[in-house]
């Protein structure tokens, strides 16, 4: 049973302890203080990603609550094959993408055959993407499709490898590489549309 009666203070536990160790301690003791550590580390990040993808504070609020509950109830299924953060973010991205699909009744959040005349011969520089100031970054992320946005967040915010992204989206690594290229191009196109006069 979940021990709610005598939780340790999260501050009693070293902040240097790794996520994987916290998960093990939680599973061994069912002490909610260990879950509080994970909550403190990840709830803000989950909320931010949900907000970026769902574009609504109340939906991001519900998403964070649902994702955290899902994580709590499935902690024993975390196998340790991936980083804990990757596991958490994969739950978050999949939750948000499913939510968008259901809301829009559109199964094509990620479209392989992206029918647009994007010149993807020339790859957009990473620095161009990451050095756009935060205010503009918010605007651009708000403009681009959810699929492109999530793939850029995975790459630049979560430092996920191509292999990790392909695992989350259940696609081949070459498909993911192409999708990143397209998302970067889309980002650049929106940037120039919005700020061409600067």
């Amino acid at each position: 049973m979940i021990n709610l009666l005598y939780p340790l203070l999260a501050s009693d536990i070293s902040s240097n302890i790794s996520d994987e160790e916290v998960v093990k301690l939680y599973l061994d003791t069912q002490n909610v203080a260990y879950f509080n550590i994970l909550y403190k580390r990840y709830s803000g990040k989950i909320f931010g990603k949900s907000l970026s993808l769902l574009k609504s504070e109340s939906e991001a609020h519900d998403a964070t609550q649902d994702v955290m509950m899902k994580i709590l109830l499935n902690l024993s299924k975390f196998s340790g094959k991936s980083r804990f953060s990757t596991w958490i973010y994969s739950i978050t991205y999949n939750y948000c993408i499913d939510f968008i699909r259901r809301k829009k009744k559109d199964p094509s959040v990620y479209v392989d055959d992206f029918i647009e005349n994007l010149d993807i011969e020339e790859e957009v520089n990473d620095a161009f993407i990451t050095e756009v100031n935060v205010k503009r970054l918010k605007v651009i992320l708000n403009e681009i499709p959810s699929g492109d946005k999530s793939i850029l967040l995975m790459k630049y915010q979560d430092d996920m490898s191509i292999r990790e992204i392909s695992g989350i989206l259940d696609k081949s690594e070459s498909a993911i590489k192409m999708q990143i290229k397209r998302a970067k191009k889309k980002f650049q196109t929106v940037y120039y549309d919005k700020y061409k006069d600067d």
Partner: protein
Amino acid sequence: MINMNNFKKLQEEQEEQYKDNLLGIKSSIEGNLGVIGIFTGLIETYITKLIQCMINLSGGSSDKLDK
């Protein structure tokens, strides 16, 4: 090499900006955990009695199992 990453800055800003929302979400989760805890307690308490009752109804006896 990436020198500056404003995706990370955006994440930090969002975490700071929505701190208060996170407190509300935590209370909701704790509420849900409380409900789950109560149900778990009820199941732990009554499930053995329910199984025993079903065994008795089917004509068996849990005493025989012990022997």
